[in-house]
């Protein structure tokens, strides 16, 4: 009897068994939450102080969608998207890789009645949760500093969770391909760092050459900024649907690719 395995690209088979895997990560994190919180919010706050207060004093107010906006608010609303991206990416790269490859935690889990698909799902949601946690802490600090009091921040919060989901899906592709931690440097230097400068976090995208501007308008980080910044300014995003769909498309396609590559890795 000759048999072929189902394709690695077959439809994801998901169940609620991702939840105990998620809880496992939660339990580890509970032991380290406070020190990790400090690390998670210290860096974005430094950006905010250096650029918002320092550079902002030199730059003066900018115009977004025809509305004047202080550079502090401009950078705060952009950098929180970057923080969501970074928190999700770090978790889905370095931490997930430790669990998958170094500690062999996934191998242990797969000896229990849990599918690989559910493990990948759990890691994806976990990295997104870490992003949400970081973003929540930063939002809290921004509220205290009085940077924005927009009631629409309540909408920005779930949008930033979505940003975390998109970037954790993307990072899991590189997790599935990695042979060691060094590999992740490529992802940061070739993808994330250029995206940081092209997505309108530090300066308006209108400053970019038209061709670059057009291409950059389809980047996931651009979509995140375009959704979040108006909410900080107590406005609704223009083209909200389009940017939401960009994030969704990146998330769905990336999750599928990440799952296929992870399945391939585990069949090895």
């Amino acid at each position, binding site marked *: 009897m000759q048999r072929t395995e189902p394709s690695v690209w077959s439809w994801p088979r998901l169940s609620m068994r991702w939840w105990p895997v998620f809880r496992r990560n939660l339990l580890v994190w509970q032991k380290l939450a406070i020190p990790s919180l400090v690390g998670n919010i210290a860096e974005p706050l430094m950006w905010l102080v250096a650029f918002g207060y320092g550079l902002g004093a030199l730059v003066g107010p900018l115009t977004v969608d025809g509305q004047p906006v202080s550079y502090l608010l401009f950078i705060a609303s952009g950098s929180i998207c970057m923080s969501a991206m970074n928190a999700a990416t770090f978790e889905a790269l370095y931490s997930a890789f430790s669990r998958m490859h170094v*500690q062999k935690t996934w191998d242990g889990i797969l000896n229990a009645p849990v599918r690989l698909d559910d493990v990948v799902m759990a890691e994806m949601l976990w990295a997104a949760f870490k992003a949400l946690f970081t973003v929540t802490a930063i939002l809290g600090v921004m509220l205290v500093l009085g940077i924005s009091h927009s009631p629409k921040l309540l909408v920005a919060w779930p949008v930033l969770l979505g940003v975390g989901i998109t970037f954790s899906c993307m990072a899991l592709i590189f997790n599935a391909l990695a042979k060691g931690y060094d590999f992740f440097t490529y992802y940061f230097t070739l993808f994330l760092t250029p995206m940081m400068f092209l997505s309108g976090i530090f300066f308006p995208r209108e400053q970019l050459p038209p061709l670059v501007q057009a291409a950059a308008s389809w980047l996931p980080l651009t979509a995140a900024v375009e959704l979040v910044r108006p909410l900080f300014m107590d406005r609704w995003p223009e083209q909200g649907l389009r940017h939401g769909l960009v994030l969704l498309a990146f998330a769905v396609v990336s999750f599928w690719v990440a799952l296929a590559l992870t399945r391939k890795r585990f069949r090895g």
Partner: protein
Amino acid sequence: MQKPLLSVEHLCKRYGSNTVVDDLSFHIDPGECLGVIGPNGAGKTTTLRMCLGLIGPDAGAIRYFEGLAMPHDALAIKARLGVVAQMDTLDPDFTAAENLLVFGRYFGLPEHTIRERIPRLLDFAALGHKRDAKPSELSGGMKRRLSLARALVNEPGLLLLDEPTTGLDPQARHLMWERLQLLLQQGKSILLTTHFMDEAERLCGRLLVIDHGRKIAEGRPRDLIAQHLEPDVVEVYGQGATGLMGQTALQALASRTEVSGETVFFYTRDSGPLLAALQAWPQLRVLHRPANLEDLFLKLTGRQIREGG
């Protein structure tokens, strides 16, 4: 006759042109301990991974319990299996008790059921005093016993153990054997791969010898020895021992003679005349012993070293 808990039929696995598992069939009856022995690279771990549904076979069937098929019913099967892998996969961030708790959750067991089982499992693993210790604070033997306890959290009827005592010192190994024997007495069934022939002889009611992915022998340890070997072995070593190979009169007293390194092995049905004749070489050291599983293993799979296994 009870139905087997696990039956594997005509299993094949190829990687490119390399056939790793070749038409392998075996089964495990309820309450039995089946040992799978073979040199490095013989296909033991690949077979076990297919039995766990981690990789798909190219051909063949794997059935468990009452008609569940791997990999189709993988989750239903794994809910009733206990697995100890070759490498410990304990969570380094958790205490011994937390390791058991978290693993129990993967089975969807109710929280109170797991918490109720934890003290019993720790006691069974002789780790009652280590419930709050992390794996890094445990010795190699303790870690392996914690892995075994973790594999028992779902109260499985069938255990799959991949080299459970590799790397342990004799004390730790004996304690592990004791626990495994206890599990067999409780009526559990075990599939065990091992490199230790004394382990196989002590624990396993039946053995499967595989090499190059194929089954080369199967049976009870004593029967296999009787079937394939002369009952007595005389080992001769010391200065000039290999020179004995030239002594045709001496060789005639043994059914089979082999050299490995500086030692000559005589396999014989009647050791008396051979031992008497060897008195002519008083400088040589002579060891007379019954044939054992190791002799069988080496006869079936050869003495050459398997690299890269």
